[in-house]
């Protein structure tokens, strides 16, 4: 059973009420039992409706207790006052507690020990419950922030995928219009001319040869335009595997062996960004922190997943497995549905696996 301040408070309440009942058995006074039952009912009400305003009904309890005391209550009524003092300290209703303490019978020397004990108990439980509530509030706040962050990540990932799709479509239509506008006309004209050449080659070979030369010139223009178009569409900067190879080649500290296998065409742009970032971060960490003599990078792609392994022999003795850079990258990998792990043995390995959907 998990012990919470509310459970302890309820157990102590039951104990107090039981003690008051045992005390009542000595006097068997109707007014005292009425007071006891009233306090029990009010405890049940406050337990049922755990609301800050309901707690303030302890003032009614105090009023009824003082009323019973004034019409001739017994020693049990003084117990009831201490019970109310305990409750008001627990709920943090310090003005009520001060009023109770000012009542003469509460501060008599003989009952001072009991009064101070119940005050202390109530105060300790109050601090406990406040701290607990604060902790729960913080936890809820961070859970809400995490949830919002996760939602934002999902939205960004979706938006990225959509942008990628739209880019592909836009590029396709651009390529189509380039080919149609530039090379298409020349090729079609040459095709028609060659058809004519075929028809007239036996009747008029000279004319056919002339037409053949013209169509070759047009075809030449078309091929040149096609080459220009392809050259213009080519990426100036490296991407994908080429980019990763360039990163490995530019790494100056130690020689990096870069091995690829499999078909990389299924790897999306988003995944390339993540893989490049992991490779950059890992090589930077090797440069900064380890005394590696070799680094090996393996990139494998299948129909279902892509795997990046970065291995080096510069194992450093630290308890912190991932630096902050790789920790944030791990989060990025998770958003694309992958996993980033490390293995520390004779060599240090960072392994990233991303499924391809």
């Amino acid at each position, binding site marked *: 059973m998990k012990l919470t301040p509310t459970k302890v408070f309820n157990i102590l309440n039951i104990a107090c009420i039981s003690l008051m009942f045992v005390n*009542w058995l000595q006097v068997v006074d109707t007014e005292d039992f009425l007071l006891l039952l009233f306090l029990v*009912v009010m405890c*049940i009400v406050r337990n*049922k409706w755990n609301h800050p305003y309901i707690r303030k009904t302890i003032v009614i309890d105090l009023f009824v207790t003082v009323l019973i005391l004034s019409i001739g209550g017994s020693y049990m009524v003084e117990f009831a006052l201490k019970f109310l003092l305990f409750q008001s300290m627990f709920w943090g209703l310090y003005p009520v507690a001060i009023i109770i303490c000012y009542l003469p019978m509460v501060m008599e020397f003989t009952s001072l020990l009991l009064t101070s004990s119940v005050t202390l108990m109530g105060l300790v439980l109050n601090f406990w419950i406040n701290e607990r509530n604060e902790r729960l509030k913080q936890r809820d706040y961070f859970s809400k922030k995490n949830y919002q962050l996760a939602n934002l990540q999902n939205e960004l990932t979706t938006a990225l995928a959509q942008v990628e799709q739209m880019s592909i479509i836009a590029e396709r239509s651009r390529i189509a219009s380039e080919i149609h506008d530039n090379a298409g006309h020349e090729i079609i004209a040459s095709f028609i001319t060659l058809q004519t050449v075929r028809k007239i080659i036996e009747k008029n070979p000279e004319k056919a040869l002339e037409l053949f030369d013209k169509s070759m010139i047009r075809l030449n223009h078309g091929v040149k335009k096609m080459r220009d178009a392809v050259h213009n569409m080519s990426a100036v900067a490296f991407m994908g595997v080429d980019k990763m190879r360039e990163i490995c080649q530019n790494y100056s500290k130690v020689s990096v062996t870069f091995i690829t296998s499999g078909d990389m065409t299924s790897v999306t742009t988003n995944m390339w960004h993540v893989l490049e970032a992991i490779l950059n971060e890992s090589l930077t960490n090797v440069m900064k922190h380890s005394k590696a003599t070799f680094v090996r990078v393996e990139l494998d792609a299948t129909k279902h997943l892509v795997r990046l392994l970065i291995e080096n022999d510069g194992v450093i003795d630290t308890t912190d497995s991932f630096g902050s850079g790789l920790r944030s990258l791990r989060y990025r990998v998770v958003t694309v549905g992958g996993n980033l792990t490390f293995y520390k043995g004779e060599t240090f390995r960072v392994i990233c696996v991303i499924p391809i959907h």
Partner: protein
Amino acid sequence: MIVFKYALLRSLRSPLSIVGSIVVPIAYIFLPVNTWKNTPVAGVVNLVMLMLLSAHLLSGVILEDRIDGSVIRVLTSPVSTFSYIFQNLLSVIIPLIIQIILLGISGYTRYNWSIEYTLGLSICMILFVIANTAFVFCWNMFFKSIESSKYTFWFFVAVITPLSGLVVPIEMLPSNFQHVGAILYPYWLMRSVTVLTDNGINMEFWLLQSILILFAVAFLFLGGKRRSI
């Protein structure tokens, strides 16, 4: 008041309920008179014990609804939880109040009770019935089967009746046990009857009725805590 109507019909469906709620109370009117302190009150004690048991028989409807899941269907209809509980409890209280009215009328006409006595006895019996119904409602909320609720309640009644002064007067109990029954509401009913018999309706009588009302409120709050209802 559809829930009230059908709860009443369902609770009076069993022969035991009809015997306990209608036949036996009427038969008590014609029992031979016993007196204590020159006042015919022995029948009241027997009737109280009968009411303890018949309230439990009549209030099994809520427990049945909870066990077979009917309460979920009822509460999805435009019937609030408060209305459902109120009408069910009313279906238990009304037959018992009818018994009390019959008791009062028979006492006034057949046994020449004074008006003050008849009125006082009716008031404390009605409040006892309300407290008893609330207690039985609370009791049923802690059980998941009708049989376990019924038999444990009868066992409980067997324990509380001597301690409450229902079987023997409280003064005849050992001194250590005389006031232990104060945690139970039948004790306060018997004390009310004693005070009424000795002094009539006075301040102490009303204090004792306040105690019965507080018992009813306490049991209603305890039983009304939303568990699986």
